[in-house]
């Protein structure tokens, strides 16, 4: 086990701010202290070589969790063991073996070519010249940025910069990598390139990767396992497609029509989700898929016909909305099906 998290909790204190001069003056003397539970008793384990996605809405506690696991933040309670260390003790031997990349925080020197910052990291992580040269050559090759090493970071595009950040973080060949929103704000091509790279890195180097992302695509593409977190609690832990398992009671039928059809006629075959003049999407219970499909083909002027799963996003959105309890989410799914 490379990461073992046991009932980890973290809350933040903040002050209630009200507008207006009167309140500002009052706040001088007495401030109302509020606490927000950022992470609430989470537990999970990660095995070496796994690539796990961390999903959740803004403020769910993803970044806070990563920060605790990398030793930046102290938890209020709970235990965590990462690479055999307690991260917030910040032992040197621990720091030498992992890396964290935060999409919104740069470690490269803005006005200098990236290779200067990379060399600095070489010294910080005490890498010998040969290993450094080899790693650098390999990674610049993979990410296709060899020619950009001598260009000032501020002249690089966002995608190129992110690639350099990745190289800087991985130059000491960490066994464990935390990635916080690594593809935020990037164009599609850079996103794909970085995904390919991470996949390769995970497979070839057997590095364990834990990543958070806004883009479902990142996680769907990369991670066999995802942990979904909402309001500081884990609401789902498992195969991402399994989220759909929770909602698998419904299927979507997409239709292209040759003639316009009355809404009432469509509704006879299922719940109408979308409707345009010559197309429609119907939601039907899985159990009745066969009969419904047949009926539709028999009674409607169908040109084209498609059966699809409910998109993962929708399942997750439902998890966010309702469930702080996984069980509750499941109930909800059943309610939908029924």
């Amino acid at each position, binding site marked *: 086990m490379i990461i073992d998290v046991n009932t980890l909790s973290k809350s933040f204190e903040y002050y209630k701010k009200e507008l207006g001069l009167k309140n500002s003056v009052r706040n001088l003397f007495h401030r109302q202290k509020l606490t927000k539970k950022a992470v609430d008793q989470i537990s999970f384990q990660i095995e070496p070589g796994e690539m796990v996605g961390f999903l959740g809405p803004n403020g769910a506690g993803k970044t806070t969790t990563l920060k605790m696991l990398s030793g930046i933040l102290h938890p209020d309670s709970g235990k965590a063991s990462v690479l055999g260390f307690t991260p917030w003790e910040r032992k040197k031997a621990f720091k030498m073996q992992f890396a964290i990349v935060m999409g919104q925080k740069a470690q490269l020197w803005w006005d200098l070519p990236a290779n200067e910052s990379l060399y600095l990291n070489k*010294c910080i992580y005490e890498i010998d010249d040969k290993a450094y040269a080899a790693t650098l050559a390999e990674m610049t090759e993979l990410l296709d940025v060899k020619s950009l090493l001598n260009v000032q970071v501020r002249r690089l595009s966002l995608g190129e910069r992110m690639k350099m950040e990745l190289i800087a973080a991985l130059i000491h060949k960490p066994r464990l990598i935390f990635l916080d929103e690594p593809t935020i704000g990037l164009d599609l091509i850079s996103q794909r390139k970085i995904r390919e790279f991470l996949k390769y890195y995970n497979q070839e180097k057997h590095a364990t990767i834990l990543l958070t992302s806004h883009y479902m695509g990142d996680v769907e593409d990369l991670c066999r396992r995802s942990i979904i977190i909402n309001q500081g609690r884990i609401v789902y832990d498992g195969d991402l497609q399994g989220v759909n398992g929770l909602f698998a009671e419904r299927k979507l039928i997409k239709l292209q029509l040759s003639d316009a059809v009355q809404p009432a006629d469509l509704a006879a075959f299922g719940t109408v989700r979308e409707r345009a003049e010559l197309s429609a999407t119907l939601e039907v219970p899985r159990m009745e898929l066969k009969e419904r499909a047949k009926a539709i083909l028999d009674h409607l002027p169908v040109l084209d016909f498609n059966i699809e799963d409910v998109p993962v996003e929708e399942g997750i959105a439902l998890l966010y909305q309702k469930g702080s309890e996984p069980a509750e989410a499941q109930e909800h799914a059943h309610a939908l099906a029924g």
Partner: protein
Amino acid sequence: MRNLWREIKKHLYIYLLFVKNSIMAQMEYRFNFIGNMAMETGYLFVKLSYVVVVYRSGVTINGLTPDEILFFIGTFITMTGVYAGMFMINNFGLRQKIKEGELDIYLTKPVSLQFMVTLRRADVTIFAVDIIAGAVVVIIAWTRLAIPISLVTLGGYLLFMALSSVVAYGLFLLPQILSFWFLDTSAIAEITDMFWDFNNMPMDIYHNWIQQLGVFVLPIFVITNFPPLFVLNKMPPAYFAWSLLLPFLLLWIVRLAWQKGLRSYSSASS
């Protein structure tokens, strides 16, 4: 012990890289370079105007001849290079770094965080202008005072300059560490920074009780007065003992405050 030495060597080498990177980054903006030089030269003129006042009035001030005062002012200019060129930018940047959570990444590096944050940048223009000008002034004063060059005088002077640099580092970092608890400390920062200029003249021009205050309570005078006092053989034994103790005392206090601040950072920031 071996490990400690290895760590020190590593940190020293990284510091060299910091300096090199700072120079390269500054070279990127050539006109800024000129601007910094213009500013520091302007300040240099102001410092030298005090020299003019002293020489042209031709009087001994509280027992110090103009040549001796020149020695103090030269030391002040040199130390300004050290302070403004090596420490000041980092000190002023600390608040911003804490506010924007920039410490996060540094915290995960296998290098001392305090080292990374408080010595990361250097302004080589300011450093060069003041060190060169200061050295010239000190050499002139040294020659005019006909001080023999020996291991004791020159070595002692350099040693005291090194101790002074440590004091300058600790003393001016301390108020900035408050940024860990209070986000807006710009006023404190600015006011403490201005204290620096009290060293423009030897402390002998101030009342005795101000001198004692500035040596033992708020040890600002130690920084530029002690090296010339030692060379001029005017240093009382109490000062001598204090000068050896103070740097370590300050570093220890800074270390404590830093760790305390960091604990608040890593438990409060989001």
